[in-house]
Structures are given as C-alpha cells and as structure tokens.
C-alpha cells in the first residue's frame, strides 16, 4: 500500500496514542495551543493565589481553635473580619479579575483580527462535520477530525444542525458552544505537531459521551498537501476485495447517507467517507480507523455507540463484510 508523504507523522502520533495510553492527549494541562497555554498560566497563577488563601484560612482557623488566649483574643475582633474578610478579598480578587480580563481581551482581539473563517465545524448528533475551504474557495467536507497547520491561526465557524453541542479541544483552546440558529467563532493556533483529542462538552442526549474527535497538527506544507488530497476524489479500489467492497457499498444502500466523492454515493446524512481510511478514528473517535473496526462498526454500531443514528447492517456475509471493510480502510 502506497503512503502519501503526510502519513508518517500521523502514523507515529496514532501509534503513540495506542501504545502509551498517552495521558494528556485530552487535557487542559498539556497545552499545545496558544490559547490553552495562556489559560494554563492563568490557571496556575490563580490556583496558587487560592491555595495561599486556603492556607491562610486554615492557619487562622487553627489558631482560633487552639491558639493561646492572647492570640485568640486578638483574632476575636470585628477588625479582623473586615481586614481578612473584606479588604483582603477585594485586593486579591481585583488582581485576579484584572489579569483574567486582560487575557480575555487578548483572545478577543486575536479573534477579531482573524478575518477568514477557513473551517466550519457542524455539531451533529453525535459526530462532527468539518468543512475546510481550500485555496480556491472550494469546500472540502470531512468529519470527526480537525487538521491544523502548525503555528498558523485558524478561525473556526461553529454551528449546530440539531441540539446544542460544545466544541472542546482542551490541549488547543477552551470550549465554545454550537447553538442552533447561531454562528460562533473560535480562533485557535496549534504550536505543537501531533495528535490530541477533544470531545463534546455540552450534554446533547444519547451517546453524548461518545462524541469526540481528534486534532492533528501538521507542518504547514504537509497540511497544504493533505488538504489538496482531501479535496480530491476517493482512491479507486485496487484489489479484488476492495472492488467487491466498493460494489457492496453502493449495493447495500450506504450511499443513501454517506458520500464517497468520485462514486455514486452522495448521501449527506452521515459523515463523508471519501478519505475515511486516512483518519485517526471512526465513529467520532470511538474506534481506530482500521479494517477490523469498520467491520465491527457496520454490524455492531448500536452496541459500540448506543442510540447513534446509523442502522446496524447485520445481513452481510462475513466475506462481504471483510470486503466492505477493506474498501473503506483503503480510502486514504
């Protein structure tokens, strides 16, 4: 199987997830984006301040309980309440508030200065449609995975097709809701190569827990190459099994819901599968994107992800199922 030049990075990254169980692949503390980094610093500063206050309360409380009579008499005054309960919080909170507002303003300014919204993400029950606009202004439809060019700000348009969802890739930036009837904009910038994970953060019913995605950061050149490939039509099946799978895809009616550009399948209800084999995962980050997972998903998706909107296809004979899975896995 030939691999395009964009693959090696991804393969390593995916292998990394699979092997190490890589703690921090979905974590606000392992920041790999400008926004997440600024928030992380704010978090540590504010947490430090709060910890100091907690310590103060505990020390004073202990003294009040077990201090000497003199200390206790000194503590038992309204002035203490005013000083520690009123003046101290005002000073501390004014500082924290100012800091937070400055961070907020910096982000808002970044958002305002990002003019083009090159990526639209549509929240759906329970997956993500990701639409890129390529250099020629054409739409490139993908799903359940966001690819980012390293070090370049990208402005995301966040919308919803049904209920409220929330887009949250904690390593890159904070979350922002996707609300029917509204368009929200989030400008993000990833500054670390590799794969991280995100998840819907607003309860959206049913398998809300299983509505996740991956964020893949590529060097700019690789990103451009990838985008060009993503815009192209699907790979033509090469082996006999893949060809059988391609025929089965049409024959079984999969094309009523899914698109594979370059074939008869032009459905718009489920995710676009044109390059599904090149993604990190399927089923909105519930299974790795390999042939075995495709086979499992097709027959058993209601157990893997209860209440998801795809019907189970259990009628396929084992060899047909393998052929179909092989075809889908070959769509890179």
């Amino acid at each position, binding site marked *: 199987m030939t691999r395009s030049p964009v693959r090696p990075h991804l393969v390593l990254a995916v292998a990394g997830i699979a092997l190490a169980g890589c703690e921090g692949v979905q974590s606000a503390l392992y920041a790999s984006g400008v926004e997440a980094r600024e928030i992380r610093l704010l978090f540590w500063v504010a947490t430090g301040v709060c910890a100091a206050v907690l310590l103060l309360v505990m020390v004073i409380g202990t003294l009040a309980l077990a201090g000497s009579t003199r200390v206790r008499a000194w503590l038992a005054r309204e002035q203490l309440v005013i000083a520690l309960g009123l003046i101290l919080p005002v000073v501390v909170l004014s500082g924290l508030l100012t800091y937070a507002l400055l961070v907020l303003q910096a982000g808002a300014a970044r958002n305002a200065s990002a003019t083009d919204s090159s990526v639209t993400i549509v929240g759906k029950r329970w997956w993500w449609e990701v639409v890129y606009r390529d250099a020629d202004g054409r739409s490139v439809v993908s799903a359940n995975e966001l690819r980012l060019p390293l070090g370049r700000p990208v402005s995301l348009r966040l919308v919803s097709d049904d209920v409220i969802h929330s887009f949250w890739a904690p390593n890159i930036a904070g979350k922002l809701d996707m609300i029917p009837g509204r368009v929200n904009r989030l400008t993000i910038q990833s500054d670390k190569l590799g794969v991280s994970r995100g998840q819907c953060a607003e309860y959206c019913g049913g398998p809300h827990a299983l509505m996740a995605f991956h964020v893949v950061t590529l060097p700019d050149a690789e990103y451009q190459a990838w985008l060009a490939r993503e815009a192209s039509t699907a790979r033509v099946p090469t082996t006999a099994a893949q060809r059988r799978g391609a025929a089965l895809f*049409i024959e079984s009616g999969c094309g009523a819901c899914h698109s594979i550009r370059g074939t008869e399948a*032009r459905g*718009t*209800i489920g995710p676009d599968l044109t390059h599904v084999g090149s993604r990190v995962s399927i089923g909105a980050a519930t299974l790795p994107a390999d042939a075995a997972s495709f086979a499992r998903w097709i027959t058993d998706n209601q157990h893997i992800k209860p209440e998801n*909107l795809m*019907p189970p296809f259990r009628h396929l004979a084992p060899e047909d199922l393998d052929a179909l899975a092989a075809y889908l896995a070959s769509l890179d």
Partner: protein
Amino acid sequence: MNVGRFRRAKSIALIVLATLVSLALLAAAFIASGLYNVAASESHFAVTTKLLAVTLRRSVETHSLSVEGMPSDDDLVPLGANHFAAACAPCHGSPAARRNPVVLNMLPAPPPLGEVASRWSPEQLFWIVRHGFKYTGMPAWPGEGRDDEVWALVAFLQRLPDIGEAQYRDLTGAAGIADRTEGPMPAFADPGANLARSCARCHGAEGAPPVSRRVPALHGQSAAYLERALREYRDGTRSSGFMEPVAAALASGEIEAIVEDYAGYDRIGSPAVAKDAESLERGRLIAQNGVRESGIPPCLACHSGRASKQFPVLAGLSAEYMTGQLSLWRRGLRDRSAYGAIMAVIANRLSDRQIRDVTGYLESLRDARPADAPDPGGARE
C-alpha cells in the same frame, strides 16, 4: 361478654374451614379416581352447556371492552374472505360448503358462522378471532401483533350473513380454488399442489392484481427478496397470521419455484388513485432526496431495483400496504431480521404526514427508478 363473642366467632370460623377442607378432599378424590369421562362422544350436562355458554359470552363481552380502532374500508372484505376460505371454512363451513362430518364430531363442534355477525359486535368478533377459545379447538391468531389482519377477517364476518353462495364464490374464486374448501382438512395443512394458486388467491396471478390494496403485488419483485420474505415468515422473524401458516407449509424447493414464477411476471402497478399534487411533490422529494434534517435517506437509493436484490422495489406497490408495513416497523414488529433492523431505524424517523406523502408518491410511480430522479446527492445544498 366480649370473650364469649370471640369464642363464637372462632367456632364459626372453624366450621367453615372444616367444610372447605372436606370439599377440597372430595374433589381431589373424584379427579384421582378417573371417574370423569372426557370423551368427546359424551356431551355435557345441559346445565354445564348452559353455564359454559354464559361464561364464554360474558368473558368475551368483558374482555372486548378494551378493543377499539376498527378500520372501515371495503378493501378488507375480499382479503378476509380469502383467508376465511382457506383457514376458517374447513371447520366452520361456508356459504358454498357445509361442515365436514369430521368436524361435526368435535365437542364443542365449530358452529356455522352465517349468523355470527348478529350475535357479536365487531369488537367482540375481533377479540374472539384474535384470542381464540380455551378447550374448544378455536386457535388464537398466529401472527404476533398483527391486529390489522384480524380486522380483515372481522370485516368479512360482518358481511357474511348477507353473502350468498354465488357472491362467496365470486369473492374467493379469483384463482378458481374456492371449491377446495370442501376438502376434509384445512387447506394450510395440505402441502400439495396448487401452491401457486394458493398464493394467487390473495396476491393475484400473472396479469391480475392482488385482491386487496393491503396485499402487495409480488409481480416482478426480485426472486431474492421474495425468497427472503418467505423464509422470514417461515422462521418467525416476520409475523403474519396470513403468511406464517402458508410459509410454514412450504418446502425449500417449493419456495424457489414460487418466487421464480412471481419474479418472472410483468410488474403490475396499482390502479391510479387521484392524489393531491402537493402531497405527491412532497413525497417525491422524500423518495428521491430524503430528508436530511430528520436523517431520512432517499427511499429510492435502495428501493429502485438498482441496489441489492434483497431490497424490494417500491414503485407501484399500494400505499396501504406500505403504510401498513411502516407501521409494523414503528411498532417494533419487523426489526428481528437483519434487513428489517435497517428499515426499522428509518421508519421511526418518518412522521405520519411524511409516510402519507411518500407512500402516495411511490404508489404513483410506474418505473422503478423515475427518469427525472436526481440522485441522493441532490439533498446537498
């Protein structure tokens, strides 16, 4: 004084208890002795007969109180008539045939049904046909959850008093088999010849439409689909009081023969029914484009004959039949097969109005895949 009252109450209770115990012992002894005669040749005491009759009537009256929702259309009668001829007449007789002597030696003997409609209300008839009677030989309806089929029979039974021999032969004679009901045994127990005619009784023979709009026209459907349907009826994954007994009696070779026949016939469209143009247009959009917001894929993506041969072609099928099947899916009665599970998901996403529109449109189609059909991708804006 209080104590005295308590003692009296206690002794009364003891006497009652002792009586009950001795009665129970007597009854046990009678049963154990084998003195009771269970012979069908021995009729009940008159009082027992009377008691049983009252019990039966009261039971039906009470239990049928919850029955409702009788559909009212004439299309039910021919369907009911043909099932009657095949399944009921062997025991109960018909306007064209008296009851068989074998049957007359049952206890109780199945009554002739000529007057049945005057004795029972439609709801009561429904309950009887649906649930049968204990200890009589009257079976319950075999198709699980298929109340819609029961109503067809009820509709016929209601008309039965007014139906003479000629009209009866007319109703059931479409395939020239009405006389078979005079045979000694129920037709469904005879896996003999005339199977094709047996199917044609309801589904219509070559060139002839089905007897009712509730019955699908099988003409020109793929053999693979028809065979699957019969096998599903046979193994109980698809339920029908009409089809399951028939399918159960079929041997594998017979199934192939029948489905080859029907697959080879020319397709038969439903007679044109005047349709509201707006509804047809809405139906066309659903069938050809699907409804993206509701997750409804275009029907014709699978059901136009170009996809798997396992999917039925819907063009020209009657709207009543399709609506009926969709409602079975929505009631959870058709998702036991692998194929049924796929459609179950979609059927549950269709609203009543969408079902009306899309079945109307599909019925009006003459070609399996209309020439002006944009492909499923047409839904993309």
